[in-house]
C-alpha cells in the first residue's frame, strides 16, 4: 500500500512540476503591454492590437495591483515595455523611474492641449495621451423632459418624483465628484500654483454646505457609491446622474437618457467643472529603447485606433484632429472634457484624497461645522506632507550592532567550546537534519523579509532612495508627530482601538465557538455532521469576498440589515430608524466585529470540538455522582479540562486578530474618520496610500511586533506561574 502511495505522490509532484513550468516559458520577444481595462475597453484594445504588425503580449492586470506590479518589476528591468494608466500616476512613476520619456515628438496640434499638459512633467513628455475621462451629466429623458441647465433646476425636479427616487444621483461623499462642485465655487482640491492643499476657505465651505442642503432636501441620496448611482439611474429612480463614461457602458438601453455638460450653480453662476483623467500610453525604460515598443505606442495612439476605441468602447479620444463624433454621448463627453481640469499628478495631490474624503464625509454626517472639518483635513494633509526626518549618523548604531554581534558570536563560540556545549550540539545533529529544510524555507522567505522589513523602520525616503534616520520614525509615531498624544489617529488611540478590537473579537470567537462546540457535542444532537459542515462554511469562502458581502449588508439605505429593520417595523408596528452603520465609531466598530466574528468562530468551534473529544467521560460522570449540576459540570469540569488545549489556539487567534487587516479595510475602511482603523491598517495607509512612507509603516510594524511579543511573553509567564 505504502508503495502505491509513494508512487502516487511522485506522480503528483511530477505533474505539478510540469504544470508549474509550462506556461511560464514565454518568449522574451513580443512587446509586452499591460493594462487594467475591462469589458468594452478591453475589447477595443484587443481589436487595435490585432491590427498591429508585430507580436504583442497583452496582460490585463487587476486595477488594485497595477501600480505595485509595476513598482516590483520595472525597476528590475522586467515587466512591460508599454503600459496604459491614468496620467495622475506619472509624477510618482517618474520619481521611481518606472516611466521613461517618450522618444518621439507629438505632431503639433494633434492632441488636446490639456491632455498633453497633463502628461508633461518638467517639460518632459512622459506619455502619449490616449483618451480622456471625466464626469458629465446624465439626464433620464423620461423623468426630465426639459434640459436642466442649473443645479437648482435639477433640484426643482425632486417634488414631482415618486418617493424613493432622486433628482440627482452622484457620489456626493467622494472628493472626486465633489471637486466639480468645488470648481463652481472657484475652489480646487489642490492649489496648483503652490502645490499645496486647496480644499479650504469660503469656497470649500460653501460647496460643502450646498451638498449638505441637497442631501437634506432629498435631492441627492446620501450614501451613494458608484454601484448605487448606476443602479438608481438604470432603474429610472434618478432623474439625473453625475457619472463618467462607464455609466453609459453599464446602461445599455435600460432607460432613455442623454448626456450633457455639468450644470451651473446659481449661487455663483459658474459651471461645475470635473476633474479630467487622461489615460495615456507609457513606456518603461526598456520599452523606450525598443523600436517595436515605440512603434506599438504610435499604433495605439493613431487616429485609426482612436476610432476603434470610440466605436467599440465609446471612449473620448485625446486627439484633437478627429472629426466630432456622431455619437451624442461621445460628443457630450468630449465637450465636457474640454471644460474639465486635469487632475494634478504631483505627490501633494495624492496626499489630498484621504483628508478631503474624510472631511466631506464628516461634514455630511453633520458631526462638525464645515470649517472644522476642513481645518482637520488641512491638518491631516500637513501631517502626511510633513518634512521627512533628517538623516542621522549611522556610525554609533553600526558600532553598537557590530559589537553586539561580536559579543553574541563570542558567547556562542564559548558555549560551543565547553565540553557540554559541544556534546549537546553533537547530540542535536540528527534533529538538525530534520529541521534543515524548514529552517531554510522559513529563514529565507519568512524571517529574512521580516528582518529587512524591520530594518526599514530606521530609514526614510522613497523606496529606492532611502536614507538612515535612526529612531526618528519611532519618535514621531510615539509622540503623535507633535499633536496631542490622545488626538484621533495617534498611536495610542489606535492602539487602544486595536486592543479593544482584539479583546472583543477573541471573546466572541471563543464564546460562540465554545458554545456551539458544546451544543454540537451533546448526545441529543441529530445530523451533527451536516451542521458541522454548514457552520464551517464561513471559513471556506475567501474572506475578501465575504467581507464585501457584509459591507453590502450594512448599507444604510439598501443593506439587508436595513431590510430587516423595515421588516421588524412592519411586523411589530415599531418605528426603528435604519442605522447609518459607518457614521459612528460604535456602530462601525460593531459592523467590523460582526464580520470578523462571523469569519472566526468556526475555527474556535472546531478546536473546541477537538478538545471536547479528549475529555474523559468518567470524570464527568464522577462529577454528576458528586451532585454537580449541569452548569457546575460545565464550568468546573469541562471548561477547565479543555482550557489548556484551547490556549494555543486562542493565542494564535489573538495574534491574527490583532493584525486582521482585511476586515477593517474592506468593511468600515476606517470610517468614520479613521477611528476604526487598527494599527495594521494604519501601517498599511502609510505604506501605500500616504506617499509610500515605507520606513514609517515599517516602524509601525516593528511596534506591533514588539507589543505582541511582550504581551505573549508576559501572559506566558503569568500562566506558567499559575501552573506552578
Amino acid at each position, binding site marked *: 500500500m505504502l508503495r502505491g502511495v509513494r508512487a502516487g505522490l511522485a506522480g503528483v509532484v511530477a505533474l*505539478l512540476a510540469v504544470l*508549474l513550468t509550462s506556461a*511560464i516559458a514565454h518568449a522574451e520577444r513580443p512587446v509586452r503591454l499591460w493594462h*487594467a481595462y*475591462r469589458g468594452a475597453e478591453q475589447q477595443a484594445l484587443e481589436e487595435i492590437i490585432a491590427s498591429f504588425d508585430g507580436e504583442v503580449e497583452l496582460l490585463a492586470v487587476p*486595477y488594485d*495591483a497595477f501600480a*505595485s506590479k509595476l513598482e*516590483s*518589476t520595472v525597476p*528590475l528591468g522586467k515587466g512591460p515595455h508599454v503600459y496604459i494608466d491614468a496620467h495622475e500616476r506619472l509624477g510618482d512613476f517618474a520619481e521611481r523611474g518606472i516611466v521613461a520619456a517618450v522618444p518621439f515628438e507629438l505632431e503639433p496640434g494633434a492632441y488636446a492641449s490639456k491632455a498633453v499638459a497633463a502628461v508633461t512633467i518638467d517639460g518632459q513628455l512622459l506619455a502619449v495621451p490616449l483618451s480622456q475621462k471625466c464626469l458629465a451629466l446624465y439626464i433620464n429623458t423620461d423623468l426630465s423632459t426639459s434640459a436642466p441647465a442649473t443645479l437648482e433646476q435639477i433640484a426643482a425636479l425632486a417634488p414631482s418624483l415618486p418617493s424613493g427616487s432622486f433628482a440627482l444621483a452622484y457620489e456626493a461623499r467622494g472628493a472626486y465628484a465633489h471637486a466639480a462642485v468645488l470648481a463652481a465655487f472657484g475652489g480646487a482640491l489642490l492649489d496648483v500654483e503652490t502645490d499645496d492643499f486647496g480644499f479650504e476657505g469660503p469656497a470649500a465651505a460653501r460647496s460643502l454646505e450646498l451638498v449638505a442642503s441637497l442631501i437634506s432636501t432629498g435631492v441627492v441620496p446620501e450614501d451613494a457609491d458608484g*454601484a448605487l448611482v448606476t443602479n438608481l439611474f438604470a432603474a429610472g429612480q434618478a432623474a439625473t446622474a453625475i457619472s463618467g463614461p*462607464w*455609466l453609459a457602458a453599464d446602461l445599455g438601453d435600460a432607460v432613455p437618457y442623454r448626456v450633457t455638460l455639468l450644470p451651473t450653480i446659481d449661487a455663483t453662476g459658474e459651471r461645475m467643472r470635473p476633474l479630467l483623467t487622461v489615460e495615456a500610453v507609457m513606456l518603461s525604460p526598456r520599452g523606450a529603447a525598443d523600436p517595436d515598443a515605440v512603434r506599438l505606442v504610435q499604433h495605439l495612439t493613431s487616429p485609426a485606433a482612436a476610432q476603434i476605441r470610440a466605436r467599440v468602447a465609446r471612449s473620448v479620444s485625446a486627439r484633437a484632429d478627429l472629426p466630432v463624433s456622431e455619437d451624442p454621448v461621445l460628443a457630450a463627453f468630449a465637450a465636457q472634457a474640454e471644460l474639465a481640469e486635469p487632475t494634478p499628478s504631483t505627490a501633494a495631490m495624492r496626499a489630498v484624497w484621504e483628508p478631503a474624503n474624510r472631511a466631506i464625509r464628516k461634514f455630511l454626517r453633520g458631526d462638525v461645522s464645515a470649517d472644522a472639518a476642513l481645518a482637520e483635513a488641512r491638518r491631516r494633509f500637513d501631517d502626511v506632507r510633513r518634512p521627512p526626518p533628517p538623516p542621522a549618523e549611522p556610525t554609533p548604531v553600526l558600532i553598537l550592532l557590530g559589537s553586539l554581534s561580536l559579543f553574541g558570536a563570542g558567547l556562542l563560540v564559548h558555549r560551543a567550546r565547553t565540553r557540554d556545549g559541544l556534546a549537546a550540539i553533537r547530540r*542535536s545533529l*540528527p534533529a*538538525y537534519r*530534520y*529541521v534543515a529544510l*524548514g*529552517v531554510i*524555507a522559513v529563514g*529565507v*522567505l*519568512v*524571517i*529574512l523579509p*521580516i528582518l*529587512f*522589513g524591520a530594518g526599514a523602520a530606521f530609514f526614510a525616503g522613497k523606496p529606492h532612495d532611502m536614507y538612515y534616520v535612526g529612531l526618528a520614525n519611532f519618535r514621531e509615531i510615539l509622540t503623535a508627530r507633535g499633536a496631542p498624544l490622545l488626538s484621533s489617529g495617534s498611536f495610542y488611540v489606535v492602539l487602544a482601538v486595536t486592543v479593544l478590537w482584539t479583546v472583543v473579537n477573541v471573546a466572541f470567537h471563543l464564546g*460562540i465557538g465554545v458554545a456551539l462546540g458544546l451544543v454540537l457535542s*451533546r448526545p441529543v444532537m441529530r445530523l451533527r455532521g451536516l*451542521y458541522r459542515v454548514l457552520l*464551517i*462554511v464561513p471559513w*471556506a*469562502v475567501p474572506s*475578501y*469576498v*465575504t467581507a464585501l*458581502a457584509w459591507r453590502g449588508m450594512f448599507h444604510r439605505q*439598501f443593506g439587508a440589515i436595513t*431590510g430587516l429593520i*423595515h421588516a421588524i417595523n412592519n411586523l411589530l408596528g415599531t418605528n426603528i430608524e435604519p442605522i447609518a452603520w459607518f457614521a459612528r465609531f460604535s456602530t462601525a466598530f460593531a459592523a467590523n466585529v460582526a464580520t470578523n466574528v*462571523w469569519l472566526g468562530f468556526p475555527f474556535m468551534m472546531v*478546536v473546541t*470540538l*477537538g478538545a471536547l*473529544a479528549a475529555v474523559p467521560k468518567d470524570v464527568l460522570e464522577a462529577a454528576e455522582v458528586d451532585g454537580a449540576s449541569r452548569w457546575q459540570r460545565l464550568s468546573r469540569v469541562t471548561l477547565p479540562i479543555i482550557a489548556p*488545549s*484551547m490556549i494555543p*489556539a486562542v*493565542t*494564535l487567534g489573538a495574534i491574527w486578530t490583532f493584525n486582521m*487587516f482585511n476586515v477593517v479595510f474592506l468593511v468600515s475602511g476606517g470610517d468614520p474618520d479613521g477611528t476604526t482603523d487598527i494599527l*495594521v491598517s494604519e501601517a498599511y495607509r502609510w*505604506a501605500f496610500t500616504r506617499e509610500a512612507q515605507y520606513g514609517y509603516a515599517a516602524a*509601525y*510594524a516593528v511596534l506591533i*511586533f514588539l507589543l505582541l511579543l511582550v504581551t505573549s511573553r508576559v501572559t506566558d509567564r503569568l500562566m506558567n506561574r499559575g501552573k506552578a
Partner: protein
Amino acid sequence: MTRRADLLEAIAAHAVVILAVCFSLYPILWVVSLAFSGSTSLEPQVLPIPIEPTLEPMREVVGATRIEPDGSEIWLFGRQLLNSVVVSIATAVVGISVAIPTAYAFARFEFVGRREGMRLLLATQMFPAVASAVPLFMILEALELLNTRTGLVLCYASTSVPFAVFQLRSAFEAIPIDLEEAAMVDGATRFEAFVRVVLPVARPAIAVTFLFAFMTAYNEFILAATLLDDERAFTLPVVLQRFIGEYDARWDLFAAGAIVVSLPVMLLFYQVQRHMVAGLGAGGVKG
C-alpha cells in the same frame, strides 16, 4: 424526568445550532443571490433571493476564453481554475513536506535551539506582512524567482510552514512514542519508523494541515496579482480582483466568480471535516 428534560434539551440545542447556521449562511446566500440576479433591487431586501434569476454572470465568468496568438482558443477560466488548484496543491505539498520533518524534530528530539525555534516560529506570526512584502520581492528577485509560479508556490509554502509546524507538532506529540520504538526494535531506522509508522498514524492531522496550507495559497491575491504576469498563469483570486475597477465594479461577476472559487474548498472541507475535529483536537494547536 429525564425523557422530558432530554426533549427540552434537544429542542434547545437544535434551535441554537439552527440559529447559528442561519448566521453563518446568510452573508453567503447574499453572494449567491447576487451571482444569479439579473438586476439589483433598490429596496432593501431581507431574504437573499435572486431578482430576475439568470445564469448570465456565471456563464460570463466560467466561459471566459482567450485567443492565442496562433489563433487557437483556450478556455481561460478553466486554465485559471487549474492554476489555482495546481498552485495550491503544490503549496500544500511543498509546505507540508517541509513542515512535517520540522514538526517531528520539534515533537521528538531534544536539540540545542529547540525552544528558541518554536518561539521564533510563533514570532513570525506577529509581524505584519505590510512591512515584509517589499523585502520579499527583493529576495525573490535575487533568487530569480520573481514572476514565476515557482516563486509564488515557494512564498506560500514558506508562509504556511509555521502554522503547519504548530499543528503537526502537537499531532506528533499525541502519538505514543512506543510505536516508533517498537518499529525501531523491529528493525527500522529512526527515519523508517517515522515514515512507516508515525506518518500513517498522523494522517488525519496531516490532512487538516494540508487543507490549511491549501487555503493559504488558494485565497491569496496580493502576492499573486503582483507576481504573475501572464493571464494564463493567473490564479482565480486575481481574476476576481479584475472585476473591480477604478471607477466601477462588476459585483455580479465578482459574486459568480466567488462561488466557483469557493466550491473546491468547500469540497475539501467536506472531505476533511471529520478529521478536522480529531486533527485539531489532538492536543490542539500547541504554541
